[in-house]
């Protein structure tokens, strides 16, 4: 399994629908300070079900919606969709591709999608956990947080290892 496609629209600094096509190896993301690189990593973390405002650098859940700039009006919804290549049936679903999506509206209401149809957050998290793609796992290392594991309490470190078991 790998992350084949990422589509971001209305999320943080991406008001226009923007898509990334990824291959299985190493993809590097570069760009000047403030251009939106960490927002891409936040988008992936968010679509996988992340709820922590600290990790998403927000205060309220609707802060991820493009809030407008000097020359561009705010939008009413943020949507992120990832397409996972499932040829190897890593996820226990009989599809060659699995699409997972998340939306949030200005009123704070969230929606989760799987292959186009609405599901609950629980369904997304349960499915992804089966493939070790959890949103709070070690697999997404936020900016400036790399050495957080050294300052964690022993119990917090334990939960990292529990995920790997």
């Amino acid at each position: 399994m790998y992350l084949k496609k990422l589509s971001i629209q209305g999320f943080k600094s991406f008001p226009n629908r923007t898509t990334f096509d990824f291959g299985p190896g190493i993809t590097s993301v570069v760009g000047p300070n403030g251009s939106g690189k960490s927002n891409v990593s936040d988008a992936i973390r968010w679509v996988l079900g992340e709820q922590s405002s600290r990790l998403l650098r927000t205060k309220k859940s609707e802060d991820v919606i493009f809030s407008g700039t000097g020359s561009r009006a705010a939008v009413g919804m943020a949507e992120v969709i990832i397409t996972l290549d499932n040829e190897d049936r890593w996820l226990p679903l009989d599809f060659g591709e699995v699409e997972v999506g998340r939306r949030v509206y200005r009123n704070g209401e969230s929606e989760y999608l799987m292959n186009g149809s609405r599901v609950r957050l629980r369904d997304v998290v349960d499915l992804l956990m089966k493939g070790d793609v959890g949103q709070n796992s070690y697999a997404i290392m936020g900016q400036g947080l790399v050495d957080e594991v050294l300052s964690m309490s022993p119990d917090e470190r334990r939960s990292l290892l529990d995920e790997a078991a």
Partner: protein
Amino acid sequence: IHTRFGATYEKVNQAFGEYFSAFFGGGQAHLALTNPDNVAEAGIEMEAQPPGKRIASLNMLSGGERSLTAVALLFALLTVNPAPFCVLDEVDAALDEANVGRFTSALEALSQKTQFLVITHNRRTVEAADSIYGVSMGRDGVSKVLSLRLADLPR
């Protein structure tokens, strides 16, 4: 430690020590259970000794040593239980030239099993990538994205 957790713990501990001494050119690092008699509830301590040094506690490590030790643990977890993909946001920011080299060669080896998305300002890290996306911000505060080749990057 005959549980599933126990088996994982042993393997991660082993791999953590191996990555650590590969990164630091020696020395050793390992995990420890806060209460070995009660594996089900125990927490995990971390110890790291760069070669030739005597570190009393992790807060004596330098900024770069801390990043490298953390990456050694992350790569150990990915070795024992490969996640399908992994996103790294400027984990190389505190590393010197030589350590960036060690980091990228370990990354290349792991990328056989795990897909990586690596955000970086470091040219050496970009050179290890199979493909590159450039993100830019217009005067309108909107991010734009472009698929790049290495030759497109400023020297």
